[in-house]
C-alpha cells in the first residue's frame, strides 16, 4: 500500500524532472554546437574571436531571437503564427512614418507605436483563431497576406530614409553596453523574462498543458481560449517590437521589410527543440536556435567557404535536429514507461 502511494506521489515529479533535464540537455547541446562552430571558425581564421565579429553575430541574431520567443509561446499551445514577418514589416514602416512626420518624435512613443501595432495584429489573429476555431495555420497565413497587402497599399513606392530617423534612435542599432549591442540586449532580456515566466508561472505553464492536450486542458479548467489569445498577442507584440529594432538597425524601410522571415522563425524554434506538435520546448532553446542559424551564416563568410552553402547547411541542421529530437523523445518515453512498470511490478 505504501509503495503504491509513493509511486503515485513521486511519478509526476519524476516525469517533470525528466522533461526538465531533457530540455536543459537540449539547450546545452545547442550551446555546445555554437561553441564548436565558434572554435572551428577561430582556428581557421583567428580574427573571428574578436569582439566585433561576436557583436556582429549578436546584431544579426537579434530580430530572429525576438520573433522566436513569441513564436515559441504560440507553437507550445499547438498553434503557429506565420504572420510575424508581415507584422514586423508594418510595425517598422509605421514607426518610420511617425519619425518622418514628427520633427520632435519621442523614442518612447516610437516603441509604443511599434508594440501597439504588433499587439493589434496579434490580437486580431488570436481572436479569429479562438472564436471561430479555424486552424491557426490558415488564419495566420491569411493574415500574412492581408497585413503585407495593407503595408503595400500605405507604403507603395515610399522608402523611409535614414535622414528622417533621429540619431539617438539609430544608436540602439549600433551602440553597445558593456560590449553587448543594445539591439541584442533587448531580445535577450525578453527571452530571459518570458523564459522564466514560462517555467515558473501557473498561467504560462498552462500553455504547455494546452499544447499537450487541448481537450484535457479545457476539462481541467484551463481557460484555453484566453491563454491562446494571450500567446498570439505576445507573439504579435514581439514582432512589433522587432519592427522597431529593425528600423533602428537599418534606418531605412520599405514595404518588403521582414518578408520571408516567418519560416526561418519557425525553423529557429524547431532547431531550438520546440516541438511543432506543441506541449514542449523552451524559449531559451528557441532563442539559441536563432543564434545558431546566424552564427553558421557568419562563420561561413569568415572561413571563406562560399556563403552559398549557408542555406543548405541550415536545412540539413533542421533535419538532423528534428530527427535527433525524435530519437531522444522515444528513449525518454521508453525510460519513463520502464520506470513506471517496474515500480508497479513491485
Amino acid at each position, binding site marked *: 500500500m505504501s509503495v503504491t502511494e509513493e509511486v503515485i506521489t513521486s511519478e509526476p515529479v519524476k516525469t517533470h524532472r525528466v522533461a526538465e533535464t531533457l530540455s536543459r540537455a537540449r539547450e546545452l547541446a545547442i550551446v555546445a554546437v555554437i561553441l564548436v562552430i565558434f572554435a572551428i571558425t577561430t582556428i581557421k581564421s583567428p580574427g573571428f574571436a574578436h569582439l566585433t565579429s561576436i557583436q556582429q553575430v549578436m546584431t544579426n541574431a537579434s530580430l530572429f531571437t525576438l520573433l522566436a520567443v513569441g513564436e515559441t509561446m504560440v507553437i507550445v*499551445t*499547438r*498553434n*503557429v503564427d*506565420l504572420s510575424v514577418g508581415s507584422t514586423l514589416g508594418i510595425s517598422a514602416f509605421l514607426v518610420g512614418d511617425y519619425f518622418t512626420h514628427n520633427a520632435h518624435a519621442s523614442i518612447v512613443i516610437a516603441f509604443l507605436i511599434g508594440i501597439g501595432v504588433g499587439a493589434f495584429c496579434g490580437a486580431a489573429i488570436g481572436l*479569429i*483563431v*479562438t472564436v*471561430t*476555431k*479555424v*486552424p*491557426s*495555420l*490558415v*488564419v495566420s*497565413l*491569411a*493574415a*500574412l*497576406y*492581408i497585413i*503585407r*497587402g*495593407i503595408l*503595400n*497599399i500605405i507604403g*507603395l513606392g515610399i522608402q523611409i530614409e535614414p535622414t528622417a530617423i533621429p540619431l539617438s534612435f539609430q544608436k540602439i542599432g549600433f551602440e553597445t553596453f558593456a560590449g553587448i549591442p543594445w539591439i541584442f540586449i533587448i531580445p535577450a532580456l525578453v527571452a530571459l523574462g518570458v523564459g522564466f515566466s514560462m517555467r515558473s508561472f501557473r498561467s504560462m505553464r498552462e500553455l504547455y498543458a494546452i499544447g499537450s*492536450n*487541448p*481537450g484535457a486542458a479545457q476539462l481541467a479548467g484551463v481557460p484555453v481560449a484566453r491563454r*491562446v489569445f494571450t500567446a498570439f498577442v505576445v507573439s504579435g507584440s514581439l514582432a512589433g517590437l522587432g519592427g522597431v529594432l529593425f528600423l533602428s538597425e537599418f534606418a531605412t524601410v520599405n*514595404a518588403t521589410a521582414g*518578408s*520571408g522571415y516567418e*519560416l*526561418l522563425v*519557425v*525553423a529557429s524554434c*524547431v532547431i531550438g527543440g520546440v516541438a*511543432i*506538435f*506543441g506541449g514542449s520546448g523552451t524559449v531559451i532553446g528557441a532563442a539559441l536556435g536563432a543564434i545558431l542559424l546566424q552564427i553558421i551564416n557568419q562563420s561561413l563568410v569568415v572561413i571563406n567557404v*562560399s556563403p*552559398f*552553402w*549557408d*542555406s*543548405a*547547411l*541550415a*536545412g*540539413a*541542421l*533542421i*533535419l538532423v535536429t*528534428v*530527427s535527433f529530437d*525524435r530519437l531522444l523523445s522515444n528513449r525518454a*518515453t521508453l525510460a519513463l514507461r520502464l520506470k513506471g512498470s517496474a515500480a508497479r511490478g513491485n
Partner: protein
Amino acid sequence: MPLVAISSPLESNEEVPAPLDRHSLAFGAHSLVRWESALVLFFIFDLFYGGFTAPDFFSQNTIFFAGINFGLIAIMALPEMLIITTGEIDLSVAAMLGLSCASFGYLFEHHVEVFLAMILTLGVGAVGGALNGFLVTRVGLPSIAVTIGTLTMFRGLAEVILGTNEVTGFGGPWTDVGTNTIPGTPFAWAFGIFVVLALIYGVVLHFTSTGRSIFAIGLQEEAAFFSGIRVKRIKFNLYLISGIVCAFVGLLYTYETNTARYDAGTGLELNVVAIVLFGGISIFGGRGSLLGVVLSVIAVGIFDQILSIKNVSSQEQSIVFGILLLASVVLPNSARGYRALRKRFGPGSYTSAGVPESTV
C-alpha cells in the same frame, strides 16, 4: 507508440470533424450549399467584374496570360492537395522548383544534351521528394518541420549549384512550351498541362481505391492503418510524386523565363498552400475535392489577371487574396457551428435526442 502523428499538428482546438458529407466527396453533390458553389459564384463574379471594368477582358490574351502567370502555381497545387488531404503538408514545393531550375541550368551550361538534362532534373525531383517521404513516413517526423528543413536545404543546394549565376539562352523547340499557346487554342501550355494533370489526379482521387484511401488516412490515420491501408507507402508515394511534379514545374519555369536562377519561385510555397486551402481542402486532412482546387485555381487566376489588367500591383493583390482565404475557412466553420447549435437547441431537438445520426 504505434503510429506517430494521429492528427494534424497545427490545429488549434481538437475539433473532431463530424462524419458528415463524406459521401458527397465525389462529384455527385448532395446539396448545392457547398464551398464549390461559392467558388463558381466567385468565378461568375470574375466574369462580370472583368467584363465591365477591365478593358479587353474577353480576349484571348486574358486566357493566355492567366495561364502563363498562374499555371505554375496551379500545377504545384495538385500534388499539394493530395498531401494536405492525408493530413500532412509539403512546404518544399517552391524550393524544389528552384533546385530543379538550378540543376537544369547547370546541366545546360555544361552542354548536357537537353533531353537527358531534363530526365536528370526530374530525377533530382524524385530524390528530393523521396527524402521528404522517407523522413515523414519512415523516421516519423512531423511533415511541417521536415519540409521547412528541406525547403531551406533545396534552396541552399540550388544556390550552391548555380551561385548568383544566371543561365540564359535555352532556345530550342521547348521554348514554345514555355512561352506560346497550344497550337490552335488560346491556352498556354502550362494551363493545358494543368488540365491534363487535374483530370488524372481527379480520377485517381475520386474514382479509385487509392483515392479513397487518401481520404481515409486524412480522416483517421490509425483506423486506416488497421483496415489494411498502406499508410506509409501511400504518403511516401505522394511526396515522391510531388517532388517530380515540382521539378517538372521548374523546367517549365526555366523555359517560360528563358533563365535559370537559384531563387526561382522564392516564397511560392505559401501561395500554393493558400490556393489549396481556398479550394475548400481542410488543413486537418480528409475533406475536400479536386474540383474545389480546380475552381479555386481558375477563379483566383482570372481574378489575378483582372487586377493585373487594371494595373493593381501583385503586392496589393495579396490583401484581397488574404481576405478570400480567411473567408474560405471562417464562413464554412461558422455555418457548421450554427448548424450544431441549432441541432442542440433548435426545434425538433427532443425528437432527435438519443437517435444516433445515421448516414447523412
